[in-house]
């Protein structure tokens, strides 16, 4: 077995980013993601890369914008209220087609909420989040190892699509420690050349980067082009399935909720209830095929989230009455226990 190290989720994100050659990190303090900012303040400086504790989350995302337009890999991280502040910048990055990685270690909301883990930002993450008709790729790991791996893929995907990529975790995943194999194989993507960057027009004609399209029809054309790109992202859908083949009911959950569902599934199977699990890893694009395929023999689905029903809307849209879709969720930082979920399964069956 490869050498494993015990690592906190937030730190694994940082180390994964460093391995992916992230050249610049910009952040502002907010719980529960602070360990990452502190970690990067040391590591990035040691590696002679860029670290800035910015004056605000707004400034941080715009620093990412600036670093990204030179072709450098850049990231920022925050927790829910701070991510709201970054939305303007994320929209500009999407409009300007700039790559970048944004980590959201979700906490309870709305408003200041609390600092418990939560999943209330699913809509914000998967619907673009800021103004305008755009999407970001959204990755939702459920273990510290997967956080370490997926942040590396996130940088590749951002470059592949010239688009911001959001990593959506929560306070529990950010704060927990698990063993991580630092040499774990990570999928590598074929990346296009960065022939659009601004680094001075020494050997070429001057370029500009903009999201402003004032000429008649130009913005519509730009949006159609972005739309095609979002459709293409479907080739990189990721999803984990467990025991779906013989399941009488399938749980659908992401991130920390999926971890609880895995426990619930083990518990239920011990009691002889055939439970399966579908765990979307990309939340946008959403794993439609996997869910549709399951409806061929599964007629009951239970969506479990740490909110009052967000991803369940996507599941319902896909299933489109081909099966019953139930929901179990707790808001404001409440984490369901496996027993609660098993009780809910029993109630449904």
């Amino acid at each position, binding site marked *: 077995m490869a050498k494993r190290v015990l690592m906190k989720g937030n730190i694994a994100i940082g180390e994964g980013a460093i391995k992916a050659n992230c*050249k*610049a990190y*910009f952040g502002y303090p907010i719980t529960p993601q602070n360990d990452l900012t502190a970690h990067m303040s040391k590591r990035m400086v040691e590696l002679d890369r*860029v670290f*800035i504790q*910015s*004056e*605000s989350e*707004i*400034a*941080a995302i*715009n*620093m*990412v*914008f*600036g*670093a*990204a*337009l*030179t072709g*450098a890999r*850049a990231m920022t991280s925050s927790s829910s209220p701070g991510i709201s502040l970054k939305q*303007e*910048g994320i929209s*500009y990055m999407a409009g*300007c087609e700039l790559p970048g990685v944004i980590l959201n270690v979700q906490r309870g909301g709305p408003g200041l909420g609390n600092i418990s883990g939560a999943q209330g930002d699913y809509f914000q993450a998967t619907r673009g989040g800021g103004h305008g008709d755009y999407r970001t790729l959204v990755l939702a790991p459920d273990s510290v190892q997967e956080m370490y791996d997926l942040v590396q893929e996130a940088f590749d995907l951002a470059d592949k699509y010239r688009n911001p990529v959001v990593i959506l975790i929560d306070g529990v995943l950010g704060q927990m420690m698990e063993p991580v194999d630092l040499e774990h194989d990570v999928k590598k993507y074929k990346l296009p050349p960065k022939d659009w960057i*601004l*680094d*001075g*027009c*020494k050997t070429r004609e*001057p*370029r*500009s*980067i*903009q*999201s*402003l399209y004032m000429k008649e029809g130009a913005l519509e054309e730009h949006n159609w082009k972005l739309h095609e790109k979002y459709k293409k992202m479907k080739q990189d859908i990721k999803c984990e399935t467990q025991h779906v083949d013989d399941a009488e009911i399938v749980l659908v959950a992401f991130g920390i909720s999926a971890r609880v569902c895995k426990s619930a599934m083990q518990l239920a199977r011990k009691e002889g209830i055939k439970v399966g699990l579908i765990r979307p890893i990309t939340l946008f694009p959403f794993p439609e095929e996997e869910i549709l395929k399951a409806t061929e023999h599964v007629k009951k689905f239970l969506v479990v989230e740490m909110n009052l029903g967000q991803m369940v809307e996507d599941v319902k849209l896909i299933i489109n009455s081909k099966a019953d879709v139930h929901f179990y969720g707790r808001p404001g930082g409440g984490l369901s226990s496996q027993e609660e979920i098993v009780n809910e399964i029993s109630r449904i069956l």
Partner: protein
Amino acid sequence: MKKILFKTEALKDTVMSYCPGCGHGVIHRLVAETIDELGIREKTIGIAPVGCAVFAYDYWNFDVTEAAHGRPPAVATGIKRVLPDRVVFTYQGDGDLIAIGTAETIHAANRGENITVIFVNNCVYGMTGGQMAPTTLIGQKTTTTPFGRDEKIAGYPIRVCELLSSLGGVTYLERVAVTDAKNIIKAKRAIKKAFQVQLDKKGFSLVEVLSSCPTDWGLNPQEAIEYIEKNMIPYFPLGVVKDKS
């Protein structure tokens, strides 16, 4: 015949969309001349603001990016920190720089980011149609101060150079005006100095350029120049405010 006037390479051969009498055209030209004279066109990255000068990337003949309203200093920070050997400048209006972007301005200045800021102060929001700016003078009528700016309602016009001068990271601050040939030459000298400060890696430099907006002031171009001289310069005195280069 001897040629004494040349086109600047750093300016594209495009007709500008600015109103008659607007100061932006002159200031664009001064920036472009400076960049050519310093021989830095091929390593310069400019940042266009949200405001009338948003189209600057159509006029300047070097790399230019847009930035969200008020965020150019943060974008400039991101660029300059990963490409420290390039020349990075922002071109910002009064609303951009000291209303919505106050935090970004002050903190980039305070960190001593080695960038140059060209700050165009015309006491009004131009692009959106003549609203009050953070630098609008007391008594000045705008579409959102129809009775004239009343300090009891809207506070006081902000003197940006004086505000920034106490910050440790700030190296060079000068206020100039593009009102006549003499002042334009001074403005050019200040802009060139500001870029030189950056080339010498000496830290944050900003030139505040008092400029006219005849359209939103409801004046003709000549009257607008007189307005700067009679009303703006007494409140925003010209000259070097800080120089530790």
